[in-house]
């Protein structure tokens, strides 16, 4: 901190806690504000400061290594520690960037889709969800993970139930049941680990666990954690809550959740199984790679196939999300640096592409009120900017060069080919499913550009307040597709840290 003023030095040191506290405190203020617009702008302000903090943290970590923050100055492992290394700094940036783009987008979208008296409550739940996700990512304490997981999940159930179709309620209820089962599994796993080691601090656990590797309790804990987290990240066949939840939630909620919630769950999986249990234990003892590989492949193939036959475009993209999560888990199952790099890159890249796509759909909902594929016929002429955004996002999903989707595919295939032998078949499957993505994306594009508009009332382009944030993400899809050296560099560094374990 030499050179910096004492004041700024203090603030910089407090960044880890501010990352969570800023949205956490803004949430109740939103709830008591009676005015929807005021709550909206407070939320925008909070989300932008969150992004600034996340970027600053990434900068700190890249410059000086791990940042450790002791809450209330209680020294870990007794006290709660927030611990930021390159891995979670990266995930924080992903979550915060999506938050910073979706929040201003939600201003107009929410006014259109949610009753005005509920708008302040919407922003309260939204900010709680954001702080929950950030909390899971930043904390170095196992029980703290569970606490933030519940904060983010409960607020997510509320957000989904705000969707206009009545079926949003059943979708939210289903998510609540399955999410609670998942959370319970996770807390049981954490409890068992506590019984065995007497510690909840991640770094501490990583040191203590090798001593009790042989214990059946630890293996059972591993299983509970695995199933619980896979429920949260919607890994096939534990994905059943996701399509309805995404399809019926309000547009900004879908855009936000699809780009962040599952990504944070993937982060949890990586953090727990690679950092805490260690890559050696996961891959050599528990055969994590051999368990995840078939699930990931089935997820990618079957869900891409299901997506092809959807007529509701939001649900189509929801199934595509389950398939894309399959790609992330596939990268992990390679158990190699390149594979993990692909996983971590795809966390970011998929957030960008799905965010852009769901936001474009939100624009369509704003004007047409439906995202049925027939309702979207002829939209290419009526909403040129919206549909152009959809096309770019869709091409990115397919993995066309010059988009971020290509970069993910590149590392994924490279990872498979590096392993050689039968893994070439995996590379082929990745490519075949890309072609399937082309099919489902192109169905929408064709409807929009090559069919005549069927509605009778004239429809115009979506307002700028929706288009501008959408195009920010579209531009990011292109920018990070043309210049991926930096993102791939961070992802690779993070992959190396994960494979090495938390101690080093």
């Amino acid at each position, binding site marked *: 901190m030499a050179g910096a003023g004492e004041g700024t030095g203090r603030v910089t040191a407090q960044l880890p806690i501010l990352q969570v506290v800023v949205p956490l405190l803004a949430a109740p203020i939103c709830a008591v504000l009676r005015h929807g617009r005021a709550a909206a702008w407070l939320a925008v302000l909070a989300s932008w400061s969150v992004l600034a903090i996340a970027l600053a943290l990434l900068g700190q970590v890249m410059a000086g290594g791990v940042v450790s923050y002791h809450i209330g100055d209680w020294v870990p492992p007794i006290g709660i520690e927030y611990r930021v290394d390159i891995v979670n700094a990266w995930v924080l940036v992903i979550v915060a960037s999506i938050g910073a783009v979706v929040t201003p987008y939600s201003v107009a979208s929410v006014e259109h889709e949610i009753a005005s008296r509920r708008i302040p409550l919407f922003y309260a739940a939204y900010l709680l969800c954001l702080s929950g996700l950030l909390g899971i990512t930043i904390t170095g304490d196992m029980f703290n993970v569970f606490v933030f997981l519940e904060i983010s999940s409960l607020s997510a159930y509320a957000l989904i139930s705000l969707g206009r179709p009545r079926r949003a309620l059943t979708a939210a209820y289903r998510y609540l049941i399955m999410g609670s089962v998942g959370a319970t599994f996770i807390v049981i796993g954490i409890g068992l680990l506590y019984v065995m080691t007497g510690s909840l601090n991640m770094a501490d656990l990583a040191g203590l666990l090798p001593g009790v590797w042989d214990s059946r309790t630890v293996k059972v804990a591993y299983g509970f954690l695995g199933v619980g987290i896979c429920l949260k990240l919607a890994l096939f066949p534990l994905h059943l809550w996701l399509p309805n939840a995404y399809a019926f939630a309000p547009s900004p909620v879908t855009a936000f959740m699809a780009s962040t919630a599952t990504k944070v769950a993937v982060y949890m999986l990586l953090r727990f199984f690679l950092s805490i249990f260690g890559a050696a234990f996961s891959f050599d003892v528990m055969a994590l790679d051999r368990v995840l590989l078939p699930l990931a492949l089935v997820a990618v193939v079957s869900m891409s196939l299901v997506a092809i036959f959807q007529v509701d475009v939001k649900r189509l993209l929801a199934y595509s999300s389950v398939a894309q999560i399959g790609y992330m888990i596939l990268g992990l199952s390679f158990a190699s640096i390149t594979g993990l790099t692909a996983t971590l890159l795809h966390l970011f890249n998929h957030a960008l592409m799905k965010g852009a796509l769901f936001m474009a759909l939100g624009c369509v909902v704003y004007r047409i009120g439906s995202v049925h594929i027939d309702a979207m016929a002829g939209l290419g002429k009526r909403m040129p900017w919206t549909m152009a955004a959809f096309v770019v996002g869709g091409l990115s999903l397919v993995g066309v060069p010059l988009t971020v989707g290509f970069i993910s595919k590149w590392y994924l295939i490279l990872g498979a080919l590096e392993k050689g032998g039968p893994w070439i078949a995996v590379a082929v499957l990745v490519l075949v499913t890309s*072609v399937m993505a*082309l099919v489902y994306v192109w169905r929408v594009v064709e409807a929009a550009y090559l069919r005549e508009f069927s509605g009778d009332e004239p429809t115009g382009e979506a307002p700028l307040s929706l288009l501008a944030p959408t195009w920010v993400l579209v531009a990011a899809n292109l920018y990070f597709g043309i210049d991926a050296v930096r993102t791939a560099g961070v992802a690779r560094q993070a992959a190396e840290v994960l494979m090495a374990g938390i101690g080093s």
Partner: protein
Amino acid sequence: MSIELLLALSLAVPAAGTLLILLLRKSPNAREAASLVTAGALFAIVLRIYGVVSTGERPELVLAEPIRGIPIALEAEPLGVLFALIASFLWIVTTMYSIGYMRGHHEKNQTRFYVFFAFAIASVMGVAFAGNVFTLFVFYEILSLTTFPLVTHAGTDAARRAGRVYLGILFGTSIAFQLLAIVWTYAVAGTLDFQAGGILDGRLAGIAVPVLLGLFVFGIGKAAVMPFHRWLPAAMVAPTPVSALLHAVAVVKAGVFSVLKISVYVFGIDFLAGAGASVWLMWAAAATIILGSLVAFTKDNLKARLAYSTVSQLSYVVLGAMLANSWGVIGSGLHILMHAFGKITLFFCAGAIMVAAHKSEVSQLKGLGRTMPVTFGAFFIGTLSIVGLPPTGGSWSKWFLGVGSLEAGQVGLMAVLMVSSLLSLAYLMEIPLKGFFQKPDEPPHHEGIHEGPKWSLVAIVTTAVACLALFLYPEPFYRLMTMVAGS
């Protein structure tokens, strides 16, 4: 002006042309003038690049670096220059032709047509000057995307179905096979740069070599090697200028050009010949040559017949590359040139017949040669060039391909070439013969001469004369190809 700047301009000029066309959309004359000026400027730029490259220089330009070690880079080398010369010159001619055709045919959305046309040419320049396999792939995909609106231009159900086949096959093969081949190449070679003599020698051996080459050849769907040729006949729903420039020249030649370039600069012909990796693909190409000709026979629709003829002729180029000797490579490169001029003439004629006489089927053409003598005369010259008879340029490429086959010890392929020439003579010569020597079924609507629009006629005569001129002056192109084959 620095040569690197010229390389950038070869992409930037047609791209900027689209803006100009958009700005001038209110006045069709100004819009078409903008198209012509852009095309002329591009050709001048490519000529300058040719001047430099023919002295042995290899200018390079890095545009971006998406993945470390894999830049998007342009590099001018003789084969790319040959392709760029063909595409940019024929763009001028096609623009003239389009002016007559699009107005004479009362097509809608003409501005969109010219805009995407210019975009497509920009991507073709990217393909021609790609400095590594990745860059080639990028522009190859952009070319598929920018030509899609041209194929579906009519907006009808048939156009939509055709568009689906078009994009499905081109994207499908490029993602499923070509991308796999590219990542594989990178994984074993550690680079994707085009280098004289190839980058794979000593790094790949055994069965992997023919498999990788097969992934490239079939992954480049634009080369239309069977069974991935269906997109080409489907694309014929597009307006005729699109069929003429893109689906007889720019797009399909981008495909076979990629196959040739990858064979020479990624595998290297010596490595291919040594490994015997390309033998099975020679026969895949030979099968396409024969089958394409046979299918062409069955088509009464003129454009469909020309499309299958193109499928067949494209595999000549693939075959030349697979022969893996310098005669084959020279013949292959020259065939890109000769077939381009021959086939574009035929398509121009087909479009002129459609505009002037509203005929699209071969069986309707009886006696039409008497009312459209110039068009049918040009069709005759184009046919000679496709078949490979003197005094047209097509005889040179057939000659070198034949020599290459014998050099490779494949007498069977020589027979395939001969049989296919006879077949194409039969199914193409039928058209001028019908036109000139048969009596029309019904009296013609027009007395005396009634040719197509005059802008179109200028284009037809230009390319037909070029077919003849290339017989007398193949020298500069032959020299370019010897530089490729010798490197």
